[in-house]
């Protein structure tokens, strides 16, 4: 795949968030509407295209801890807010930001994590669990060895302690399990198809009216 080859050629250790999501989208995984821009005018144009509110993020494969580096501007509601956020990000002293990601702002109600890693004995494995800040706090995750059958994918969702998060919750609909199973199977397939990929995190995978959507993603290369 061209994205991976290009990244490897330039010696990158991982794909940028934007590239990571392009890869996921190739496998039918729903991702946020987004575009990479380098100018303020372009940022405004893309924001209008995607639809307000939007998020601006510093982009680049070296920028994997954007929250900690303060390189994220959330909930921007109009052209003016996009302009000032763009200027602030590109003048950041914490990191050199050449590109900015303009992204659909998702107010998902629940955060999940879907990932892939390689086991020495079993090869690519899929991980599923609670996302966001709870990933590290609760360590509530389940694994399956790729390839996942449909049954494996469905069974995996019931294999976490916090499985109730997938049910209807505070007026929000239950997760679309078929769609989620598609994603779990797809991420395993990516691992099988691309030997050069070492690890993947989709975190968070948010639920928007019960439909899972990849909001942030990291693809680590070998």
């Amino acid at each position, binding site marked *: 795949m061209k994205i991976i080859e290009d990244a490897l050629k330039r010696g990158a250790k991982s794909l940028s968030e934007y590239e990571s999501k392009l890869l996921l989208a190739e*496998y039918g995984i729903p991702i946020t509407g987004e575009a990479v821009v380098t100018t303020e005018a372009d940022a405004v144009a893309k924001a209008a295209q995607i639809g307000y509110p939007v998020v601006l993020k510093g982009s680049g494969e070296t920028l994997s801890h954007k929250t900690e580096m303060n390189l994220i501007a959330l909930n921007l509601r109009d052209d003016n807010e996009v302009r000032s956020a763009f200027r602030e990000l590109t003048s950041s002293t914490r990191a050199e930001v050449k590109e900015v990601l303009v992204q659909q702002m998702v107010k998902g109600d629940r955060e999940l994590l879907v990932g892939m890693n390689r086991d020495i*004995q079993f090869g690519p494995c899929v991980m599923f669990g609670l996302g966001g800040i709870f990933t590290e706090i609760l360590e509530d995750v389940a694994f399956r060895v790729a390839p996942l059958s449909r049954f494996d994918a469905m069974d995996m969702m019931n294999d976490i302690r916090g499985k109730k998060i997938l049910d209807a919750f505070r007026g929000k609909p239950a997760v679309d399990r078929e769609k989620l199973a598609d994603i779990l199977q797809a991420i395993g397939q990516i691992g099988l198809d691309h030997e050069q990929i070492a690890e993947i995190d989709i975190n968070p995978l948010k639920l928007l009216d019960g439909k899972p959507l990849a909001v942030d993603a990291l693809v680590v290369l070998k």
Partner: protein
Amino acid sequence: MAAQKPNMKTLDLDGIFNPERIAMIGASANPRKWGFIILLNILKANYRGRVYPINPREASILGYPCYRSLRDLPEKVDMVLITTPAKVVPDLIDECGAQRIPYVIVITSDFSEAGPEGAALERDVVARAEKYGIRLVGPNSMGVFGSKTNLHATMPPVMPIHGNVSMFSQSGNVGVQMLAWGEQEGLGFNKFVSSGNEGDLNCIDYLRYFAEDRDTGVILGYLEGIEPGANLVAEAKKISRKKPILVFKGGRTEAGGKAAASHSAAMAGENEIFRAAFRQSGMVEVKTSQALMDCAKAFSHYPLPRGNRVGIITRGGGWGVITADFCEENGLVVPPLPEKIIKKFNQILPKYWSHGNPVDLVATISHDPYPECLEILSRWEGIDAIIALGAGRRGFTYRYSKDVTGPQEVMDAIRMASTFIEQRNQIPDEMLKGVRQLIVKSKKPIIVVAIGSEKSHKLNLADYQVVSYPTPERAVRVLWQMYKYSRFLNSPQDERKF
């Protein structure tokens, strides 16, 4: 190496477990050598085939004439056991190759388990075996057992009972001790292999062979690791549909990837991935050696429950309550009795019986309504399995009569009580027969719990094919494992890929 071998459709290892003629290179007249001890084990267990000890310096060992080499044997053998020092093994493989021996078991250690030099020697041995098409057990194996020909070619003198359980073990010690333990528990084995260093044949090969083997009903495995790319999940998924694989994984402490960049890699410990692999492939994973034994007994003797609904019958309230609690905490359901079943019990039991599930018969000393009640319960279509508390023979009460001294009056009373208890002890024998009949009739597992009668479990299994445990917790855990496996069998075989 072995993982790259073509994935043959059937893997014939009969010559390892049921050979008709074997030779032993390294046979010894010295009782301190394995070449003596293993030979003695083979002879003592009445091996039904012919054994040819090979030792150029001895005329005979244990009354068996010795031969100088494989070339000098009067007939071709199916299998060769090697117990010589490691450094001569490569040349011996050449000799086996020249005589077209299909199977060789290398007991000898000092190979890859001993360091880089041993590893190089092992590679040499395996490469030579491959050249001749010899299939190799070990090196560093503690031997094999096969019930068909009574082959007890193991280092310790274990004499397993014959049954339908076959086992591979990546630890020789754990394996042979499971055989010995099975002997005490009444659990019979069909085949056993200590897979040693798995230079050639590995645990997945044995799995595949046991899967096709008609005499094997249940597969047991002790596992510490698998070769990269060995495809355990895909293989075991197919096999688990045919027969249960009970697996105990050793070495579960390793933490996840330390230097990982993602959560997915950082949180993936070996333990988690193995657990996932077992679950995906329908393998029954147990966490203790005790559970391995407990499950082996039930899986090899009982039908599977179709669901997770349990009927409990007890002679006294407390144990019934404990059992019900433990069922509910472990994914099993204890459903309430419907009116029509309650009415049936009302006709037999005193008014103050529990009127529910657990069915508490309340202690009655004269007439024993237990067998009748068990039958009613087993016929109820609202449950899939039964835990029968106190149905085993000879509870602790029979100790009454032993070693007591006292005034004549007391001694007379004890004698009378003993006679009564002896008579009562006849009843459980009848009852265990009845339990077996009800299992066959209802196709439901009925697990007996006999608290405090640790010696009776072997007899229950051996004499009546009734599985019993000394605590309700163990019975519940086994039932839960059976239910999980049954659920796997009923899961759709939907292998739809992405």
